C-alpha cells in the first residue's frame, strides 16, 4: 500500500502541507475561501513539529496493526479496502480513545462543529495526497515501501 513518508532532513518547516491539507478538507476546497470565509475553519489533518532547524510533518502512518482501529469503541475508526485507516466522522462520538493510543499523535480533536476525531484520509479520491503534492522540497513522499 502506498503511504506518506517523511524525510525530516528535507522538511523546511514551511507548513504548506498544513495549508493545503486544511484546504482539501474544507467545504469549498478553495484556499482563500477556506481560510477567510469558512467558519469553523477546517482542520489540517497533520501537524508539523518544529524545534530549531529540525522539523517534520506528522501525518497518520496508516499502520498495518493500527492501534486506533483496534481501540475505537464505536467502530468509527476503520480500515478501507485500500488499507487506509479512516474515521467515519458520522459514527465517531469523540471519546478520544484513538488519541490515547496513537503513538504518533496523529489523531486530532475536531471540536468546532460536531465532535469527531480528525485524521489523515490520504485525500480520498485524489491521485496523490495534497500535502505530498505541494511539499516544495519533496520532504513528503507518497510511495509503496516494503
Amino acid at each position: 500500500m502506498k503511504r506518506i513518508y517523511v524525510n525530516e532532513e528535507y522538511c523546511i518547516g514551511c507548513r504548506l502541507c498544513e495549508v493545503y491539507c486544511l484546504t482539501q478538507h474544507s467545504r469549498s476546497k478553495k484556499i482563500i475561501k477556506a481560510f477567510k470565509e469558512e467558519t469553523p475553519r477546517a482542520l489540517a489533518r497533520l501537524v508539523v513539529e518544529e524545534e530549531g532547524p529540525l522539523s517534520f510533518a506528522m501525518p497518520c502512518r496508516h499502520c498495518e496493526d493500527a492501534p486506533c482501529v483496534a481501540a475505537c469503541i464505536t467502530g468509527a475508526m476503520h480500515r478501507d479496502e485500500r488499507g487506509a485507516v479512516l474515521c467515519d466522522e458520522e459514527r465517531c462520538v469523540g471519546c478520544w480513545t484513538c488519541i490515547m493510543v496513537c503513538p504518533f499523535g496523529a489523531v486530532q480533536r475536531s471540536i468546532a462543529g460536531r465532535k469527531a476525531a480528525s485524521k489523515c484520509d490520504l485525500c480520498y479520491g485524489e491521485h496523490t495526497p495534497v500535502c505530498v503534492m505541494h511539499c516544495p522540497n519533496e520532504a513528503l513522499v507518497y510511495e509503496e515501501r516494503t
Partner: protein
Amino acid sequence: MRYVIIGNSAAAVGAIEAIRQHDTEHPITVVADEPYHVYSRPLISYLLGGMVDEARMAYRPRDFYTRYRVETMLGVEVTQVNSQTQSLMLAGGGVLTYDRLLIATGGRPFVPPVPGVDLEGVFPFTRLDDARQIARYIERHHVRSAVVVGGGLIGLKTAEALMARAVRVTIVELADRILSMTFDRTASRLAESLLRRAGADVRTGLTVKEIVERQGRVEHVVLQDGERVECDLVVFAIGVRPNVGLVSNAGIPVQRGIIVDRQMWTGVPGIYAAGDCVEGYDLLLGENRPIAIWPNAYRQGYVAGCNMAGAERVYEGGFPMNSVEVCGVPTISVGITDPPEGDGYEVLERYDREALSYRRLVLRDHCLVGMICVGNVDRAGIYTGLIRARVNVAPFKDYLLAGHFGLISLPREYRKHLVVGEGIEV
C-alpha cells in the same frame, strides 16, 4: 473445522477479523445471549443520554456477518462448555460442537448483596437492554432523581447520561474520592468539581446500606451513615467481574478470570479466551490480571483469532487506559497513575488552572509507566507509546510536560523509527 465464538462484542469481532485474515474457508459460528447485531457496549451510556440513536450503536456495519461469513446464533445462552466432547450446551437444550472455541463472554456486573437490590427501579448498567430498560423506566415513572452507586468511569458516564435526561443524580462512592482507580487526587478533585458544577451530588466514603421501596418501587436509599437520599432510580455501576460461570467445570483454569497464556490459549486443547473474562498479561506489572477495557478486549480477541487460525501471534500485553469526557472535559488516564509514595516512582505534574489543563506523568526506573491528561489530551498517545515501548525518558524528561511536547522531543532513533517507519532508512 468449525470455529465457535461465545460472545458477540469487542473480543469476538477481533477474533473474527483475525481468523478471516488467515482462513477464509472454515465456518465461524458466533453464539451470544444478547439478541443483537454486534454493538458498542461503551455507547450504552450515550444511548441512554440521547447522544446517539439506536442506529449508531452498531460496532460494525450491518453486513458484517455476511461479509465475514459468520453464522450467528444471537439470543442463545451457552450454559456449559464440555471440553471432552468439544461441545457447548445451549439454553433450551441444543448442543453445538466446535474444533476451535473462543470464550469471549466478557464481564458480569457486580451488584452487592444490599437489601432491596431486587426492587423495581434498580438496574445494573452493562448491556444494551439495561440502557433501554432504564430509559423506559424513566419515562414511564417520570423519574426525577437517581442514585448511581459507583464513582468510577462507568458510574460517571451513567450519571451524565441521566443528567442529560434531566434526572437529578447523586453519586455514591465507597472510596474517599471518585475515580480512585484511574485518577490521582488532583484529577479526581477536578472531575468532582466538574460534576458538581453540572448539578450532580457526590458522596464519597459511603455506600448504600439499603434500598427502600414504596409500592414495590424504589423510593429512597439509606446510606451507610444513615442519611436518606430520595430517588426513583438506582443504578449499580460498581464494576464488572469476569463472566466465567459457564466454564466452571470444563477443566479450564480460572482464578478471578480465565487464565490464558500469551497466545490467549487456556491450556485446554482448542479453547482460547479473550476480553473482559480473562486475566490478560499486564505489561506494566508483568503479571496476568483482568483489565476490563475495550481496546484490550479487541486486541486479545485478535491475537486469539490469529492463533486459532494457525497464525502464531503473541499478545504484547496491555495496561489500564481510559479516555472519557467528564462533563465535556476530555480526560485520559493510562497505566499507573497514582503510585504509592516513594517506592521508586517519580511523578511529574503540570497544572494550568486557567486553561483547565492538568498533566501528570508517573515514572519508574526512568521509564514512563502512567499518565493522566485532563483538559488538554492532544497527542496523549505519544505518552502511551513511550509507556508501551519502555523508552528511557531520562534524557528528555524536561520536555515531557513542555507545551510543545511532541515526537520532536524524543530521541532521534525512536523518533525516526516512528516518523519514517520501521526498518526504513532515510
